[in-house]
Each structure stands twice: as structure tokens, then as C-alpha cells.
């Protein structure tokens, strides 16, 4: 009998992925890699030391509590109770997951299904769309628009049109996905902007999935506000966080979802039927690290603040390098990415494969001819807006000085060579 087995409907069309494409291309060590969002700086030494201590404790190499290692959920509840100003039950209001990615998946699988619509703000972290589709639901896109129309100097210039947003909500809208601070633009949504979203969620009885992985990385003059703390929002919001981004340990793949018990309990059901429990030693080490920083949350040396300060100077350096090369970067108010309009460089790629958007072609050309990598912004858009965003590329600046030095050399020499 002929082999008839192909993939299920739920994953139809979800096999390609910008990362699989670009991490391969940029893996060459001679390339200065400012593409994928991973630090090449070391995590703080006490974080590594805690993990080393944990490895020596026998029982910490065996299964722990499925929904989250007890000492970790306790530490998370402490930190977030302080930030949110409300009681958070470590056993019922928190789920520990395999990265924030795993939290997004658990949330969407738990609460979203066929017939639902989910509003996604463009540009968006690329997994939102395929995860919504895999759950059988329809993504509804709304773009951030540059209100200064071509002269954007700051991520704050990128805004939602409230009337346009309101039009996206209807009786089928199950949830809106919010990402603040925002990847890739670096926008930190203001209280007023969050209130517009909150008002619509309450009016239409919609859930809010709030991806706040960059919550500690906000730069001077900006404040990260949790939409769950706005009136009427705690009961309808899942807030997602990430150890990888908090402690510069993306390879630990630990994240968490925080919310009301009546929502978190459904995420827990997904979790117990997908991977059951997260690694124990990493959770214990993370709990210890949180314990250390919780005690100094009033102290500027707390890693949550010191990392942000370190990144702000890298942000400023990156912006300067790009400006000196004749580019106009969008200065981010938060996060560790910076987008830049490269159309001003007038690199003619019309003879290259037409089907690919301009930014894909540009990044591939830049990797080969300039030995510098970035990520094309159209990877973060729905089908309708690819034309608008295809002149932007995204740089990651959570990089050590020598990496930024190498980028500086390339950018300084950019105009000395012709394409």
C-alpha cells in the first residue's frame, strides 16, 4: 500500500520560519551577527554560580512540580507582587514554561480555537501568527504606523490608530496580543495607549495576551506599564515573562505566564498534556537568582536595572554608528533591537529573485558583501503590509564591545566600497 502520511491540517503551511533560514546563513563565524536576538555578553556570574551549586544536589536532577518548581514560583510571585501591587498565588496564578515561547503556545492552545479571531499588532514577533493559525483561529492584523511619516527618530513615533484598532474588534475577537516593550521596533506603550487597548478589551469581552519579555529593558524617560494592572484587566490578561531576556540566558529556555486562576488553570492543562514539567536545575538556579535581585529591588545595582543601563549605552553607540553611515535608525525606548530604513542607501537588487521582499534580499546581500547580518522586517508582518515594512531591517545590540567594534569597522567602510 502506498505511504499516505502527510502532515496534519493544523501545521499546514507553518513549516517555514525566518530563523531557520537566517541563522543558517549567519552561522559563519566571519560574519558580524547582529541578527538573531541573543546576547553574546556573559550572563551575570552569580547566575552561573547558582546553577553550578544546584548541579551538586542530587534530588534537583529529578522531576519537580509540573506547573513550576516551588521555589521558583514563590520567587516569581514575590517579584511580581511587588511590581503589580497585588497578591499573586504562586500555585494557581503562575505557570512555568519552556521559554516565553512555551507560554505563548500554552496560552494560545488553552484559550484560542477555530472560529476565534486574534488581533496581532504589526510588526510582530513572528511566532504569533503561526501559533494562532495552529490553534485554528484567524489572525487579524493592525499595523503600528509612523506618525511622522518617513521622519521617524524614535520608537514612540510608531502608533496605533485608535479608530482603526476599534474596527478590528468584533464578537469573534477572542484575544489581542500585546508586546511591550515591542520587538522589533522597541516601542514602550504608554499608559494612554494601553488604556485604549484595555477599554476595547473590556467593551468586547476580549482577552489580552501580554508578551512582556523585555519588561526590564526600558531606557531613560520611559516606564514599563503592565496592562494587567489597569482596572478591569487583571481578570482577562495573561502576562508573559522570560528568564532568557531577564538574565541574559536565552539558552535556559524558561518563561512564565501570570494571571488569574480561572485562566491559568487552562494553561496548566495544556502544559500537563504537552511536556508536563520544565527542567529542575535551571528552575532552582533561577529561583536563587531572583531571590538575590528581589532583595535589592530598591538598589540601582539590581541586575534588572544595571542591565538596562548597560544596554542603553550600547543602544546609543549602535545608533551613532548607523547615523554615521548615513542611515536613519529608529531609536528604541526599550528592548534590545533597533530598526533602520535602508532604502536611503539605494542598493539596487532588482536583478535578484523578485519574489523575495526587498529587505530579505538586502540582508542576504549585506551578509555576503559586507559580512554583517540583521533580520528583515517583513518577516514580522502579515501579508498586507509587507510592502510598507520591506525597507526596514532589524539590528540586535545586546552584543559585547568587540562585536560592536567589528560592526563599526564595517559601517565606517560602507561607503568606501561599491555594491
Amino acid at each position, binding site marked *: *500500500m*502506498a*505511504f*499516505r*502520511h*502527510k502532515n*496534519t491540517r*493544523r*501545521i499546514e503551511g507553518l*513549516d517555514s*520560519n525566518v530563523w*531557520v533560514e537566517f*541563522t543558517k546563513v549567519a552561522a559563519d563565524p566571519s560574519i558580524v551577527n547582529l541578527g*538573531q536576538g*541573543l546576547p553574546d555578553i*556573559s550572563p551575570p556570574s552569580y547566575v552561573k554560580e547558582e546553577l*553550578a551549586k544546584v*548541579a551538586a544536589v*542530587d*534530588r*534537583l*536532577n*529529578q*522531576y519537580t512540580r*509540573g506547573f513550576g518548581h516551588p521555589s521558583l514560583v514563590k520567587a516569581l510571585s514575590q517579584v511580581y507582587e511587588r511590581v503589580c501591587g497585588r497578591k499573586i498565588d504562586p500555585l494557581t496564578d503562575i505557570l512555568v514554561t*519552556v*521559554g516565553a*515561547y*512555551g507560554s505563548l*503556545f500554552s496560552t494560545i*492552545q*488553552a*484559550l*484560542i*480555537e477555530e*472560529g476565534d479571531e486574534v488581533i496581532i499588532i504589526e510588526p510582530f514577533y513572528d*511566532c504569533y501568527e503561526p*501559533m494562532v493559525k495552529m*490553534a485554528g483561529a484567524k489572525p487579524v492584523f493592525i499595523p503600528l504606523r509612523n506618525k511622522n511619516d518617513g521622519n521617524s527618530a524614535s520608537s514612540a513615533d510608531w502608533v496605533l490608530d485608535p479608530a482603526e484598532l476599534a474596527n478590528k474588534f468584533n464578537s469573534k475577537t477572542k484575544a489581542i496580543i500585546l508586546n511591550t516593550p515591542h520587538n522589533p521596533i522597541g516601542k514602550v506603550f504608554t499608559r494612554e495607549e494601553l488604556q485604549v487597548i484595555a477599554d476595547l478589551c473590556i467593551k468586547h*469581552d476580549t*482577552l489580552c495576551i501580554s508578551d512582556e519579555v523585555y519588561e526590564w529593558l526600558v531606557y531613560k524617560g520611559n516606564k514599563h506599564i503592565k496592562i494587567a494592572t489597569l482596572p478591569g484587566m487583571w481578570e*482577562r490578561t495573561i502576562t508573559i515573562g522570560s528568564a532568557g531576556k531577564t538574565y*541574559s*540566558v536565552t*539558552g*535556559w*529556555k524558561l518563561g512564565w505566564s501570570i494571571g*488569574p486562576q480561572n485562566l491559568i488553570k*487552562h494553561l496548566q*492543562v495544556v502544559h*500537563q*498534556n*504537552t*511536556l*508536563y*514539567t*520544565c*527542567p*529542575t*536545575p535551571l528552575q532552582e538556579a533561577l529561583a536563587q537568582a531572583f531571590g538575590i535581585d528581589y532583595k535589592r529591588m530598591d538598589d540601582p545595582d539590581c541586575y534588572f536595572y544595571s542591565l538596562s543601563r548597560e544596554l542603553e549605552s550600547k543602544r546609543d553607540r549602535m545608533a551613532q554608528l548607523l547615523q554615521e553611515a548615513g542611515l536613519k535608525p529608529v531609536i528604541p525606548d526599550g528592548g534590545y533591537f533597533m530598526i533602520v530604513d535602508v532604502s536611503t542607501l539605494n542598493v539596487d537588487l532588482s536583478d535578484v529573485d523578485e519574489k523575495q521582499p526587498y529587505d530579505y534580499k538586502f540582508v542576504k546581500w549585506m551578509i555576503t558583501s559586507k559580512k554583517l547580518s540583521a533580520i528583515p522586517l517583513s518577516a514580522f508582518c502579515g501579508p498586507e503590509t509587507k510592502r510598507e515594512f520591506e525597507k526596514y531591517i532589524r539590528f540586535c545590540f545586546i552584543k559585547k564591545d568587540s562585536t560592536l567594534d567589528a560592526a563599526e569597522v564595517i559601517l565606517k567602510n560602507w561607503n568606501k566600497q561599491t555594491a
Partner: protein
Amino acid sequence: MLRRVGPSLRHFLLERKNSAGYSSHSGEAKMSRPVQARRLEGIDKNIWVEFVKLAATYSTVNLGQGFPDFPPPDFLKEAFVRALSGENHMLHQYTRAFGHPPLVKILAQFFGKLLGQDLDPMTNVMVTVGAYQALFCCFQAFVDDGNEVIIIEPFFDCYEPMVKMAGGMPVFVPLRPKAPKDGKLMSSADWQLDPAELASKFSERTKAIVLNSPNNPLGKVFSRGELEVIADLCVKHDVLCISDEVYEWLVYDGKEHIRIASLQGMWDRTVIIGSAGKTFSATGWKVGWTVGPNRLLQHLCTVHQNSVYHCATVAQEAVAQGFQRELKLYGKPESYFVQLPKELQQKRDWLIQSLDAVGMKPIIPEGTYFLVADISEFKSDVPDVPDSDEPYDSRFAKWMVKNKGLAAIPLSAFYCGAHKNNYNHFIRFCFAKEEATLKAANDILQKWKREKTNP
């Protein structure tokens, strides 16, 4: 609260406003429809949540949940510490999504050797968050609404809810015990499938069969003949085989673990699942893998990249080093894969002796670190409750942990709802425990027996 019932209603896109109101307590969103997705229907219960809590509260000796109470081997812990503290701090950052290169390379080498074929680390191996997530990827990648999946009872309990979450229909077929020879203890080999019964479960709707050998909870190691029966049916009906082989190294009495993927016609339709947790006694590391043909694994990769995307790097690096050591020492007495089953066989034999001495009748497992014992002679301690919803063995196990401090898992936990009372006088013990733990279990059992004879 109006809940949609049954898969046939999935196709109706109900007007949300017409649904009855969802209960609204103060502080809860007043949702006009059920907030959770239908795929969660019927899969919210989990016996581990209850039994792990009971063991934590009452047990002095925990032979319940399946994990060792001895540490992973030193060479593995050392590899972990080297990885996390070494000069290459990039081991704390993302690695390759489908598996850390050193790990997939050594797995391809190792399993290529065992299967007798060339494996490509990039396309024939995918790393997962434990074997549990590997199972999840398989069901999500291959089981659509209306597909049937054959599950052999008793089964590791997650198979059923995972099939349901994927919209599939589990079809159960039991291992049936043959009476042992006079006076002898039963062996897990005495529990067998009826080939005709098995054949009758295959239909044109059958997408896959889940095979678990060595089998949790019985410890059965399927023989070549038994695997051939299954393989023939898979080939005849063009069915996939999801082969959960997490206990592959834990086989006793000189038995051989045979990989069904090595049988004729099976490589192309089998996904093999393995576990570092069971292989290296480090269940808390949650590193697992799948091995198989690219035409199947590519779909697992799609599920993986849309669910967790990466697995933690440091543990993968350490497991890779563990396998490198084992490849060098393969078949030699110092190999962990030789030493661990040797130690566990001895522990198995101690526990068998303890149970047999007091009148619990253990079924001798050919593999895994579990054994199942018949507690019929102890039934007087826990009177039957007619019309009880709860299977007898579950009530017995709860009574035992509360009153004797000894934790074990009822066999009914490994059967589907309709069959929970078929074999309700057995409980499962885990013997991957230190000598002191097994001695303490023996003391409890001996005291219990004395109390029964001299009340």
C-alpha cells in the same frame, strides 16, 4: 455554562452572543462563552497531580512516581558543570532549534550503529523537552480529527489525553495475562496481545499505533515475534508506529531490547522516542529525542518550531558528552548502560523478594524500573465499596500511603476510563531507589504482615 459537546459540533461556528452565560464570580471576566478551547475537553484530570501530592504529604517510602532517588552518574554531573562554567558562555544562549549540534551528531552516530544504518544528524534526529514533548509532537504532527490511534493497555497515561487533544480517537487493545506455571510468579512476558484481537483494531481510520517497549507499567519487553505481528499489521494497513523506547537500556535476565524500526518495512513509518532522563538517571533535565526518517521528522520539526522552538542548551551539551563516553565504552563492563541495568536488576530482585515474602504477588518485569504486584491477599484491609466510582486499586493505594506510609500507583491509572475495573487489584512500584529505601519498604511490608497475622 454552555459547553459544546462532541466533535460533530466543531463544525458549527456558533454565534457567540447566543451562547449561555459563563459563570461570573467577582474578579473573573464576564465571558459570554466558555473561555477555554474545546481541545481541553476531557483531558484536565491527571492522576499524578493527586498521587504526587499524597506521596509528598504522607509517604515515608515513596515507590510511586517513576524517578530514581539516586543521583545521575558522576561523569554526567561533571559534564554539566563543565558546560555551564566553561569559557564558552554562549552555552547559556540559544542553540540550534532542532537539537544542539554535538548532541544530534552523537545520537545519529549511536543510533545509526544500533539500527545498522547511516543517520543524518540534521534530518534524522530531533531533540525535545523530554520524551513527553516528543510524544506531543508526534500526535500533533500526524493525528487529525477522526484519526484513530491504537494504544496497548496498560499504557503510560499521557498517550490517551494527547491523542484526544489532537482530535483523535484512542482505540484500546489489552495485554492479557496468561496463568503462570504452577507455583511460579507471573512474568511480564505472560501478558500478551491476542494477534486476532489486535488485527481487529486496525481500520482505514487507523493513523498510528503507540508501542512502548520496555513497557511502563508492566515491564514487558516485547519479543521479536510479538513485534513482527505489530509490524506486519502496520505495513499491511499503512499505519505509523510511535515507538516509546525510553527504558531501552533497562532490560534484565539477558533479554534483548529489539527496536521495531529495525524490522522489515518499519524504518520508513516509525518514530523512535528516547529519553536522557531514563538513560542517565536525570529525569529533571528533560532532554529527549526522536529518531526517524526525514519524511516523518520534518513534520515533528514544524510542530516543535511552533511550540517550544528550542530546548535548553547546557543539558544538551552534557548529555552529548555522556553519550560520547558511552559510545567509547559500548558493551564494556564500565559502560553505564551495562552497570545501570545490572544494579537495577538486583533492586528488582530485592523488591520481588520483599513482596513475595508478605503475600503480595509481584509480576516479574523483564525491563523498566517498575513492577506490578497483585494485592488480593491484602484486600481485607480495604473493604470493597459497592457502586464506588473509584477503582478498588486506587482506593487501596490511597489507604496504603496514608496508613502505611508506602506510596505506589494503582494499575487502573494506566487504563482508559471504561477499562479501569478490569484489573483493579494491582499496584505499581518503582524500584529505582537506594538500598536504604528498599530496605525501609521491606520493613513496612514485614510489619504490615505481622499485624495481619497477629492483630
